[in-house]
């Protein structure tokens, strides 16, 4: 056992009176998150303003988390970003709602968010980076070393 997370624990729902998921009910905490998501989605449609909910700041039990995941379901898109650490981005069944997890280089989770946007910012390409790439590609085309111009043109 090398990590604190390896210590076995038994978790109970944070809301004692929460009906089990089999009954189709949602705990108060999960219902509150879904309600906030409705507000964020309506704002996204009205003003194109993205929003997010920080899941690690909420006192959620594993059962709450599972209930939230069931309520949001799985969408069509899954993406992995490998940059300073690993990020997993999963679309939910609710259009505009994405489940985003960030991990550091040791593999520990450092942030977990529900992102409300058309596409999470971490997936899009920035205008300045696109412009820089265009400049680089043009430079390659205008002064190609043997084989490089051909390769760049294909890309």
């Amino acid at each position: 056992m090398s990590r604190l997370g390896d210590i076995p624990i038994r978790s109970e729902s944070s809301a004692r009176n929460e009906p089990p998921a089999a009954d189709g009910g949602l705990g108060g905490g999960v219902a509150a998150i879904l309600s906030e998501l409705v507000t964020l989605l309506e704002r996204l449609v009205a003003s194109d303003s993205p929003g997010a909910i920080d899941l690690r700041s909420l006192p959620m039990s594993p059962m709450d988390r599972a209930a939230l995941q069931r309520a949001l379901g799985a969408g069509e898109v899954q993406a992995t970003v490998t940059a300073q650490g690993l990020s997993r981005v999963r679309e939910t069944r609710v259009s505009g709602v994405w489940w985003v997890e960030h991990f550091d280089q040791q593999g520990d989770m450092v942030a977990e968010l529900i992102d409300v946007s058309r596409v999470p910012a971490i997936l899009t390409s920035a205008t300045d980076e696109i412009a820089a790439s265009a400049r680089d590609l043009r430079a390659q085309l205008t002064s190609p070393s043997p084989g490089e111009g051909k390769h760049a043109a294909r890309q």
Partner: protein
Amino acid sequence: MPLASEQLTVGEMLLRHGISRRGFIQFCTATATAMALPPWIGAAMAEQLRNARRPSVMYLSFQECTGCFESLTRSFSPTIESLIFNVISLDYDDTLMAAAGDQAEAALATAMKDNFGKYVLVIDGSIPTGAAGAYCASGGRSAVDTLREAAKGAAAIVCVGTCSAFGGIPFADPNPTGAWPVTAIVGDKPIINVSGCPPIPEVITGTLLQFVSTGRVPDLDEHLRPKVFFGNTIHDRCYRRPFFDEGKFAKSFDDEGARNGWCLYELGCKGPTTHNACATIKWNGGTSFPIESGHGCLGCSEPGFWDKGSFYAAQPSAEWGKAGAPSPRRAVELGGAAVAAGAVLGVASAGVSRLRQHRSEQEAADHDRKEL
């Protein structure tokens, strides 16, 4: 011709070091989460910073043990310091910089001149004023003179560690060097205190990042500490709090209560009067914090923590909710005449700080006589 590093935006500098925009968003999101900021700020902070010029930062070390700097540079995640040093332009740090002697002093003078009014001044350590400042001098100048000079062109001053924020251990009774916190010397600049002995690395980097990205001093408490990190007491957020509420206390470090993880209040824990983020951000990459390791909180992020009696004596409940020591600016006022060489004079008052100051001045004078 490539741009000099100081002309690059943060984004360009990061790219040069192989850190992509996405990597930077990951870092800023994790930082925003750790700081309990609204989660959408992470991506917004990343975008804003990427397009900004790197702000100049000067890190001056005075009467200190380098523990705070160790905390910052030895933070658990290796990406933190590399990122923060790419986000800022660290123009002077005598611990890290390759230059030495006249070259180093020239670098400081040049950076202050070129960035006058815009740079962030980070101070580590207290400032000894006894013996005309001779207890801490570098490059032929005393710490107090260097601080006054460097503060003139600073946009803001970030005091890293309890020594620069509140005087710390050098300020403790009998304060033989006449040590003072930065607030006793500089009175006309925005000051942010990031206290702790040492402070949590993520609190240091988070405070710097927040200031650099917004250009504004964050909301501060009465001791000039960012509320986002110092708004709660350790006791408020302690996982052993339910045992306190149930009246279950460890009576010694090896009794059944200690083994059961009960509250350490009766063993001297200062959690109820200590404001810091140890119980939430924790240490060593979020692994643990002193109470989780079985030892009470020492209260190291509070003013005067070294002089509040035994670390192992239970704190009288009457002290709860009261300031355990004068705030830094208050200390200056109480010190009054003692900091005549400083800039801020307040109402002379027969307070503890003044008595201590008189005592330390007397002792410094005695010490000088002996030296002669």
